[in-house]
């Protein structure tokens, strides 16, 4: 059974205050050189063989992500 991974992240032009908060916490770990952080969502699906890429794009674009504010990528494992 194929596994599909969908990652959703806020568009670059939309302020991501959660990513900013993570970025500000990094120096406290002694980590430097990280320029930007964007927080997103990661989904894993186990799908039947006949679920096609178009269907996965529908799932991503109509439910997992809001195209107004987010972009997404679909990967087949």
């Amino acid at each position, binding site marked *: 059974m194929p596994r599909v991974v969908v990652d959703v992240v*806020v568009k670059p032009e*939309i*302020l991501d*205050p*959660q990513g900013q*908060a993570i970025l500000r916490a990094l120096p406290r770990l002694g980590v430097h050189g990280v320029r930007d952080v964007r927080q997103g*969502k990661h989904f894993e699906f186990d799908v039947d063989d006949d679920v096609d890429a178009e269907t996965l794009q529908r799932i991503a674009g109509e439910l997992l992500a*809001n195209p*107004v*504010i987010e972009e997404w990528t679909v990967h087949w494992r």
Partner: protein
Amino acid sequence: MCLWHAEDTLRGVQAVVVPGGFSYGDYLRAGAIAARQPVLRAVIDAVQRGIPVLGICNGFQILCEAGLLPGALVRNAGLHFVCRDQRLRVESSATAWTGRYAPGAEIVVPLKSLEGRYVADSATLAALERQRRVVFRYLGGNPNGAAHDIAGIASADGRVLGMMPHPEHAIDPLTGPSTDGLDLFRSAIDILLGSVRSFS
């Protein structure tokens, strides 16, 4: 009359208020799951027929997620839940829900939200401003980073209104900071009775 999320009927109501609170744990995004429930299908159909719809807070998020209003509501820029009596300016009385307000009137209504920052692309924001569809704007400092200080917007025909602050929490001096919210509901009743401004 209460409507049930799993039903696909509005039971003959003449107007709909989609209330605030939380829905489906607000998993995925605030309002995202609620916007895909059967009763919202019925609301979308009724909007095509011109029924007045008001979405408050989570209800505003749901109307945006359902595509009835443009843009989206995202996490407050300051990350904190904002709960305060909020001053607003009524920018338009040309909606089904604001006919009783004088344009430019200032009102005080509670705001209580974590995902209240209105965002939309620049073309959408320009169109909302040009068409005078920004109905409420925050005064006294932007509480959540909303684009153009937007607290509420309407559909092109003025029948659908979404707003983050809670007018239903400003209808009685015992429980709210003012009674400024009452006129939203009176305005819609005016429209439904066909007697605009007849019982002030």
